């Protein structure tokens, strides 16, 4: 009702979005049952985190936005820890010249010798991110954003941008691991892997990510155990996994790789175009694949692989292999002038907000918060900065409004939303 007059049909989508209580509670129970069967350690009986542990955890939660702070206005999870993370991450292109303390403004305004190199980034991504615990007692979502994470010295002068949303189940450590490592694996694979296509690069990357997770869980890899509630006790550890939806944005393409039920949606000229298809066990092709591998999908509180996991692909979940696989589905979309934004989110959003509504909301935010004026000549840094800020604020507004809408519609899960502005200036 409220949304009608601004072209976002908010009221109507109530009907299309799966908001009936059975599905919501089903989704929540998915994890509870999962834990019941395979993770006897109840979270409430785990020893309390010590001070050191909780600090570490906070640090692990950080999203590593490796940018001047204004680029990430809305990094809801982690603002206070950006700085530590940044240094190690953004070695080559940023460290030294840009620190949030000394250069709170625009990249292009950066002094020093690297200016010419930085000016080669014609396109800095504008994005907003919100990630909250919501109505759950555990935070198992993780988000990673790495602008210009690789490739800027090769065929793409602007660099490639990495966005990932990971929704963990059983515990948070697989999602956390994905957040920390996936972009590095993709970068290595892209630069050194010799893969001939994006598809192959992403296949290899997801496979390596999955191997790492399984290895670190079996204790072969030094990985701090105090950061998560399952404490990496091996028998339960096998029953932990995460979705992964990763978007690599190049100057002319959007490469989306997906595993599980997080989702990427492109908003193009007001139309919502899903760039990933959720891996649900009752998706006909997924059902076939599982059955051919000798597995079964049992309807117990919704379709579940072996009656346990309510998604058919995931990183981790070693105990459900080979029925649950980590192989991503990859879509490669050519960017067009009509592209407005890209939304990546966990099912905390998609359970209660349709693709169309999400696009409508994000679009409204981007349009109603237009930069006051186009960027001026390079000499006029303040104007450029203002324009940039206003634009990033729009993405942040979009991500936070979508998150609040999900909470308003009784999402019972963690909610993580990334909005990337794709408009060309």
């Amino acid at each position, binding site marked *: 009702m409220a949304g009608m007059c601004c072209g976002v049909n908010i009221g109507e989508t109530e009907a299309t979005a799966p908001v009936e209580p059975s599905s919501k509670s089903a989704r929540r129970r998915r994890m509870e049952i999962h834990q019941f069967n395979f993770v006897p350690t109840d979270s409430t009986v785990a020893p309390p985190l010590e001070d050191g542990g909780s600090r570490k955890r906070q640090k692990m939660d950080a999203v590593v936005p490796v940018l001047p702070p204004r680029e990430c*206005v809305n990094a*809801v999870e982690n603002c206070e820890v950006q700085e530590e993370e940044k240094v190690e991450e953004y070695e080559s292109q940023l460290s030294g010249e840009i620190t949030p303390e000394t250069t709170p403004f625009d990249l292009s305004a950066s002094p020093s010798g690297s200016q010419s190199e930085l000016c080669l980034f014609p396109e800095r991504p504008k994005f907003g991110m919100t990630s909250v*615990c*919501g*109505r759950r007692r555990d935070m198992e979502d993780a988000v990673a954003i790495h602008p210009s994470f690789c490739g800027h010295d090769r065929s793409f002068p602007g660099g490639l941008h990495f966005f990932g949303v990971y929704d963990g189940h059983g515990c948070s450590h697989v999602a956390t691991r994905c957040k920390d490592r996936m972009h590095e694996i993709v970068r290595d694979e892209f630069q050194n892997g010799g893969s001939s296509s994006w598809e192959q690069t992403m296949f290899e990357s997801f496979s390596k990510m999955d191997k790492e997770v399984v290895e670190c869980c079996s204790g072969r890899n030094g990985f701090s155990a105090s950061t998560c509630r399952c404490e990496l006790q091996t028998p339960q550890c096998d029953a932990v996994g995460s979705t992964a939806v990763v978007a690599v944005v190049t100057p002319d393409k959007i490469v989306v790789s997906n595993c599980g039920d997080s989702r990427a949606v492109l908003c193009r000229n007001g139309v919502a175009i899903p760039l990933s298809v959720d891996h649900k066990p009752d998706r006909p092709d997924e059902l076939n694949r599982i059955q051919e591998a000798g597995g079964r999908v049992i309807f117990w509180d919704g379709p579940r692989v072996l009656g346990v996991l309510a998604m058919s692909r995931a990183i981790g979940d070693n105990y459900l292999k080979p029925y649950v696989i980590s192989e991503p589905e990859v879509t490669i979309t050519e960017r067009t002038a009509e592209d407005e934004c890209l939304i990546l989110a966990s099912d905390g959003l998609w359970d209660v907000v349709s693709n169309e509504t999400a696009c409508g909301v994000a679009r409204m935010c981007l349009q109603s918060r237009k930069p006051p004026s186009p960027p001026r000549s390079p000499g006029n840094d303040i104007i450029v900065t203002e324009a940039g800020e206003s634009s990033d604020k729009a993405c942040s507004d979009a991500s936070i409004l979508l998150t*609040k809408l999900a909470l308003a519609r009784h999402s019972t899960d963690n909610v993580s939303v990334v909005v990337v502005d794709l408009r060309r200036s």
Partner: protein
Amino acid sequence: TQSFHKFFECWIVEQDQHLQELISAAREYEERRGRGCRQDDGTTVEEDVQDRTLRPLLERVIQHYEHYYRAKSRWAKSDVLSMFNPSWRSSLEDAFMWIGGWRPSMTFHLLYSKSGLQLEARLTELLQGLSTGDLGDLSPSQLDQVNELQKQTIREEKDITEKLAKQQETVADSSMVELTHVVTEMMREGQVDQAMDTERVDETLAPKEEGLVEVLQRADGLRLKTLKEVLNILSPIQGVYFLIAAAELHLRVHEWGKKRDARRNEHSENGHSQQH
């Protein structure tokens, strides 16, 4: 504890009076805001109302909560057991209680629910980038702080739950097992007088009750702290809306529970009289 029961009854009457004040203050604020007046010094009328009316009101309401927990703490020291089984609460409230009161993490559900209702009610304005100032308009940094506070609160809540578990387990420690055995033996041997001696029993139970007092005080401490910290994150008018929602929930659930209990008692009495 009869007196704490009375105290509680008075306190909720006062809470209802505060609720009425909070509602009037919110109405007045929204009216002035709707008119969008500006004053001579350039400040908006709503800023003025926030400072002059809302802040002192919030302060008073918070003091009222503090008053409640101070009194509760005092009575708990003399009779902790009644605090775990409060006669002034209905069985409906009892069922949703955590360590003698509301669950601290409930705060965030209350906030998100109220925020969601206000968001949906004024979505059009928010979509256009207009500010509504209410709980639907939580800013990125507010949501960030709420999220952090929620995680911290849940950690502390789990920690206190663990402490309670430890206390409850002491019911079967060796002092208790020994004493129950000794008393049983005395009764078998007909030493009824000695068996009825309460001094040793009181002595054995005393440290356990002290432990419970400590757990209860930590739980109440977390409740009050969570409430205050949420209000610190919110603007004055948002704080008013939050306290309205909190008082409405508390008072209505209490009334519904009392009514249900009364109905149930009637039924069981009727059942008895029919049998006779």
